């Protein structure tokens, strides 16, 4: 549709609505992307605050700040808020902002569905917060002292908080399935003429796979928690051995969702890296096709190795051998991805702006986390590592660099495009260094704690674990506080700063950089031709 044929009526529709209506009724992918990102930022601080309480409590042996049930509830909330509230919405925010601009589409395929899938989130977050709040009222029952895995029978002992949480998970699940459907339809039907699947930007590819994974596994989690709800209130005994059920069944259902979830968190950030590293190395991504193949392999194999989270439940020798080999095999496609990133940097002309600093940090630290993952995959050794602080260290090394730093890199990379202003590079670098150093001081010592025999999710520990816990807690405070700097940088960039050019970075390639910074409210109303 070109401007010359646009009627007066249509032109009227294209005006950006103002005030709260602009946001509540928004069908614009850019506005909804912004909403997602702001929601994620808010939840990151909420989840971060619970992590700070956890680390403050673990700073010294003994029970100083919170009681054990509250502590366990914070452990539960930290995980759920960070995964469902911060990382997934942030990745969805990037997808909403960037996918239509990258594939030359005017908007998402289903704009009103898009509005729905975002506005379910605040409701879900409210339910989650309520689950935390009700135990403080008379008759509220016990707190959710199970960890985010919600294993029965412990989770059937919990009070009404658990019901709030189950419904929160249902809402979060519906939201992400709807968002995934929208993204898949957009990517399959809305590409600009001439953009073949294998010409799609990598970020779009990663989100296509992520969206399919979400549709495959989120309903399984929904099923699992529904059964939990039935066990709690309607006299069923899916997970109750006394009634002929099996407590381990829940673990299988949970991890059938939970393990692909790791890749759901990881892949969008891999997509961001596939843009950031070539841009700042000033040469094309090394091995585009093998990257797509590796990603499909990770998603496929990742679907069938869930039980490596439950090596200690007493599976048969055959079963654990299968899950061990399968898990170790995942290192092949993941190794290929890392190799492609290093080969992209190799013989490039690199500069180190903040997004690139994060990208390099990811390549190094994610490799480290991946290698400790191979150690964990080995069943006999896992009999030691399982449920120890070593595991906590491992998955934070995978998820912080793998998912969160990737999102940071994406935010810094595209912030000039979104706001039309360059962020303050000095502050950006300062944020990177405080963040990464704080992160390493926090989680590196936890490897030693785990090996020495400290289990995870304990509120109180023997004096032999004091030293490393002190170091870890101090690191955590630095790490936590550094995010205030992120908030400051983002606000400062939105309010003003050096004018960003359309192509904000020298080496940036792709359709999104053909648009103004900031882009018009509606972009690509005339689809570009891809050669």
């Amino acid at each position, binding site marked *: 549709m070109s401007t010359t044929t646009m009627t007066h009526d249509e032109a009227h529709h294209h005006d950006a609505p103002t005030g709260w209506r602009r946001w509540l009724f928004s069908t614009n992918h850019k506005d909804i992307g912004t909403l997602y990102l702001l929601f994620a930022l808010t939840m990151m601080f909420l989840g971060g605050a619970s992590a700070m309480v956890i680390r403050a409590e673990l700073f010294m042996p003994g029970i100083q700040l919170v009681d054990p049930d509250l502590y366990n509830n914070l452990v539960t909330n930290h995980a759920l808020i960070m995964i469902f509230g911060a990382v997934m919405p942030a990745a969805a925010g990037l997808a909403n902002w960037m996918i239509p601009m990258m594939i030359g589409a005017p908007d998402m395929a289903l704009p009103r569905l898009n509005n729905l899938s975002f506005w379910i989130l605040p409701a879900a977050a409210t339910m989650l917060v309520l689950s935390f709040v009700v135990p403080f009222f008379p008759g509220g029952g016990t707190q959710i002292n199970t960890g985010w895995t919600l294993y029965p029978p412990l989770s059937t002992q919990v009070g009404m908080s658990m019901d709030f949480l189950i419904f929160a998970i249902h809402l979060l699940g519906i939201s992400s399935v709807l968002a995934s459907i929208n993204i898949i339809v957009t990517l399959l039907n809305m590409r600009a003429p001439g953009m073949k699947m294998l010409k799609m930007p990598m970020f779009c590819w990663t989100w296509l796979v992520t969206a399919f994974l979400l549709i495959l596994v989120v309903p399984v989690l929904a099923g699992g928690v529904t059964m939990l709800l039935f066990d709690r209130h309607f006299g069923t005994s899916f997970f109750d051995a006394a009634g002929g059920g099996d*407590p381990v069944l829940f673990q299988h259902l949970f991890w059938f969702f939970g393990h692909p979830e790791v890749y759901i968190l990881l892949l969008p950030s891999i997509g961001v890296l596939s843009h950031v590293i070539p841009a700042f190395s000033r*040469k094309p991504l090394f091995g585009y096709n093998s990257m797509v193949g590796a990603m499909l392999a990770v998603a496929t194999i990742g679907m069938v190795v869930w039980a490596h989270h439950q090596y200690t439940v007493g599976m048969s020798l055959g079963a654990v051998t299968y899950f061990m*080999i399968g898990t170790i*095999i995942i290192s092949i496609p993941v190794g*290929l991805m890392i190799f492609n990133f290093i080969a992209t940097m190799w013989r490039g002309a690199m500069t180190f702006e903040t997004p690139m600093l994060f990208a390099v940090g990811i390549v190094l630290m994610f*490799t480290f986390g991946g290698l400790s993952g*191979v150690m964990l995959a080995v069943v006999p050794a896992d009999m030691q590592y399982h449920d120890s602080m070593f595991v906590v260290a491992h998955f934070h090394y995978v998820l912080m660099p793998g998912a969160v730093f990737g999102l940071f890199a994406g935010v810094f990379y595209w912030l000039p495009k979104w706001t039309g202003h360059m962020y303050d590079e000095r502050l950006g670098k300062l944020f990177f260094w405080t963040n990464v150093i704080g992160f390493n001081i926090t989680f590196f010592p936890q490897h030693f704690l785990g090996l020495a025999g400290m289990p995870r999710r304990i509120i109180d520990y023997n004096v032999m674990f004091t030293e490393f816990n002190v170091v870890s807690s101090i690191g955590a405070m630095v790490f936590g506080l550094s995010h205030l700097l992120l908030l400051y940088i983002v606000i400062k960039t939105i309010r003003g700063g050096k004018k960003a050019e359309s192509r904000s970075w020298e080496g940036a390639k792709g359709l999104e950089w053909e648009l103004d910074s900031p882009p018009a409210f509606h972009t690509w109303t005339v689809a570009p031709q891809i050669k």
Partner: protein
Amino acid sequence: MINHHTNNQKHSTSPARRSKDKRQNRLRIISGYALLMIGLITASVAQAEYGLNFPEPAGAVAQEIYDIHMLTMQIATFLLIIVFAFVFYSLYFHRKSRGYQADQHFHTSWFGQWSWVFVPVLVLGVDLTIAGKADAVLKKVWEVPKEENIMDVKVTGHQWWWEFDYLDSGIKVESRYIPKEESGDLYLREVDNRLVLPTGTKIRFLHTSADVLHAFWVPELAVKKDAIPGYVTETWVSLDREGIFRGQCAEICGTWHSRMPIVVESVSPERFAAWTGEQQAVKVAKAAEASADKVWGKDDLMAKGKTLYDTKCGACHQVTGLGLPPAFPALKGSPMVTGPLAEHLDIVINGKEGTAMQAWGSLNDLEIAAIVTYERNAWDNNTGDVVQPADVKQAR
């Protein structure tokens, strides 16, 4: 960072000079970081006494596990060094500020065309090395040897204590944490009754749980297994040195998950035989005392009841009787405890479904009588009731 900032100051030297300054500054930064890292590593090695690795294994199975842990860790470290070396080489030499021109055809060279084949092959080689060794160890660790004279110990997790049943001798050990005032530096690593095991004997643990999931973990023994209500899982060990090995519950099990230490005392077979004898004598004496048709005085029951209550009930309902509401109701002034005796006995013997209150029916009549008498009279409850073992027998 400071060095870096001074670079940004405008000064009137020539561009060549500036870039040389820049390079020197950068070298200074790099060497600064290198020193910092060396410092950190030395500092952490100096902490070695606090444990950087698993403790010394106490048996053959544990040794195998320790060896495969070391092998994978060495392979991982080796790969990490390679990756870091390539990345840092690239970061240093392939920089725009050094005037390096990006090679726009690197990804279309033969290397770019074929890397997707040989990289996976290399990784597969590493994987097979690890998987092959792991598979061999796994077979030894996983399958319990089928031997007639293997010693069976049933390990039952409770909220929040461990029960060890020596199935061959019928001895039962209840193992609970010791409060800080009495255990001092061993707080959360010491228990009242240890799990005593003989060296040089193959031992099979049968894990199960009375309530929620728990997990048995002693790093020196290396085998960890979940305790699942209604199911029995098994592991086996064979200890080859004497000593005291400490571990704790590894699967979150509610409020006092942190208060479930496990202490294994590994002794010679002779001392183990002596210990078994002692335990059996104690057991016989206790049974005799409980079954004697004796009417007990209130003071005796109260004294016995206090000891039993403090160890068995105190973790939840608290020694003060005030509980930890809402999960663990107070017993002081509670209508359950001051009300009809039959209901009180029923909840103690059979537990209450859907809550953390478990069935205590495995205690003998005298023990239950003492606990109930104590609860009905302590903390100003003063009902004046004296419950006799015979009453408990009737209530069962």
